[in-house]
């Protein structure tokens, strides 16, 4: 299938990449840092620290305090008003609930004061809701009522999805785009400028041998680097993964091929490193914004959506997401998969159209 020269050259490209520790570090650093953030903020949010000044000290006030304490959203600290206010100003407390001396619902004095620094509190509504909810359940308990309504949240797809589950497939797509274009486009320009390409074609290898080697080496590089991120996300962040690994890796390879083709195309058009950088940026940057890597395409202005969802990075990211989150199979019929196929054909055509061999080597 592959000749010895092709495989050896591919092995050499891979070896050179692995020796470039700096580039490996920076390729992995950004996605790693980005999803690493979720290590610390993921899961349950930190409880909100609330101080309670219980001036009433009656049964009602005590049961309110203990019920509020049972709510996992809050961490309750009881204390003197002056102490707690200092803590509030220092930012150690988010809010103080003041229970007035006459706190007795039978006397219609069940009114609480919520003291806080409104400019500091982003979750004001949330805190207010929770306190009101707690008050409501105390009221029910005291009156011995059953709740009339309750709201239970049921995900239509019967599973919970976190932002990280959405993010990781998009991030993988973004990484494979950068790695692939760097591999074909930037390398092509660099090797040509330094005369290395010409030196290679003094030997009897053919253009296709060179291309096959670059493609093989890059596929290996993309698979290695994406696996690091993927398994980090799977094992450490426990992201949701429903589809088959085979489909996922298959999609990663198809996506890489698309961007490798684009890279060969750019590398053939641009003659210098200075020229290829803006060319590649003008290709990748809009896709970074529009392709739903960091937030869903549906959150974009409606007028852009029809275009945005057909960008190469969009169809690849959506397909990877479909495989990871919805168990999509590579062989199933899906519009995004169709999009990938179409881009594969288009990019291959563009690459062969613009890759004029003798000009590229000379």
């Amino acid at each position, binding site marked *: 299938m592959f000749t*010895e020269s092709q495989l050896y050259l591919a092995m050499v490209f891979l070896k050179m990449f692995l*020796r470039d520790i700096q580039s490996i570090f920076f390729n992995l650093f950004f996605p790693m840092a980005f999803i690493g953030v979720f290590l610390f903020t993921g899961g349950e949010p930190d409880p909100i620290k609330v101080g309670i000044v219980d001036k009433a000290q009656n049964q009602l006030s005590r049961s309110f305090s203990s019920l509020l304490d049972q709510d996992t959203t809050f961490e309750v600290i009881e204390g003197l008003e002056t102490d707690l206010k200092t803590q509030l100003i220092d930012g150690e407390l988010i809010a103080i609930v003041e229970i007035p001396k006459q706190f007795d619902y039978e006397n219609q004095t069940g009114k609480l004061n919520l003291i806080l620094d409104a400019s500091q509190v982003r979750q004001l509504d949330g805190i207010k809701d929770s306190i009101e909810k707690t008050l409501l359940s105390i009221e029910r308990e005291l009156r011995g009522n059953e709740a009339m309504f309750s709201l239970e949240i049921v995900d239509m797809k019967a599973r919970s999805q976190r932002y990280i589950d959405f993010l990781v497939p998009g991030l993988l797509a973004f990484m494979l785009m950068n790695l692939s274009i760097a591999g074909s486009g930037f390398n092509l320009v660099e090797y040509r400028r330094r005369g290395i390409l010409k*030196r290679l074609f003094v*030997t009897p290898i053919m253009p296709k041998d060179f291309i096959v080697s670059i493609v093989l080496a890059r596929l290996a590089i993309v698979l290695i680097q994406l696996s690091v991120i993927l398994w980090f996300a799977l094992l450490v962040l426990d992201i949701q993964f429903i589809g088959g690994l085979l489909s996922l890796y298959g999609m990663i390879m198809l996506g890489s091929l698309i961007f490798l083709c684009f890279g060969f195309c750019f590398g053939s058009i641009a003659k210098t490193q200075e020229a290829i950088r803006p060319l590649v940026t003008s290709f990748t940057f809009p896709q970074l914004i529009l392709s739903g890597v960091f937030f869903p395409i549906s959150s974009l202005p409606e007028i852009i959506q029809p275009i945005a969802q057909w960008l190469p990075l969009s169809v690849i990211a959506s397909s990877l997401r479909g495989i990871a989150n919805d168990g999509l199979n590579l062989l199933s019929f899906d519009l995004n998969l169709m999009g990938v196929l179409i881009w594969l054909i288009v990019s291959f055509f563009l690459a062969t159209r613009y890759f004029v061999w003798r000009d590229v080597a*000379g």
Partner: protein
Amino acid sequence: MNIIEVKDLKKAYLLPSDKTKTFNAVDSISLGIKKGEVYGILGPNGAGKTTTLEMLEGLKEIDDGSAIIDGIDVSKDPYEVKKVIGVQLQSNEYFDKLDLSELLTLFSKLYSTNIDHSKLLDQVNLLDKANAKTQHLSGGQRQRFSIACALVNNPKILFLDEPTTGLDPQAKRNLWNLVKDLNASGMTIVLTTHNMEEAEHLCDRIAIMDEGKLIAEDTPKALIEKYAPKPSDIPLTGNIEDVFLNLTGHSLRD
């Protein structure tokens, strides 16, 4: 017997100042290079030396005319020609993450052969640099390494494009000796140069090119006898530089 037979070779480029017109970088060159000789191509910058070599090496398309190397038609079968020739290009940069022995092994794999890289490095006096990267070599070492790369396929013909440009006298002499040794082992060598001393010292025969045309071709001695000025009252004086200037004029080239 000629190992290289070139007939009416032509290469046209677009004129840089006027893209609608072309000029002939190589204009109907015909030459024959004998097996086992050192053949030098001289000429001012832009005379078409490198273009001529690159057409013979299969790196540039031949617009018109024919070139037969070791019985193989270059325009019909460039990949077969590449198997029997070794080439040292003017630029001598290589992948900078590989050391010399790895680069040599890579080149041998591109010819689908295996080589003993230490033997080859020893031949060009670079054995102690086997684990060095090319960017850490001196100019002379780099040129010798380029020649080692050109030898991995044990070529019948070795093309050297300005091999001693920019080298100090020691490195230059060293490279000449290497070329002589290779030639003594039976290798045909074709080189271009600006260095007249080099042409005189190394070459069995010299071709002088100017503006894409071949204007003289002979042994150094015959060329001197024919073209160097001979003042009547002094016995034979002059050298190949005199011949060169006499033929191509004194005007500066870019």
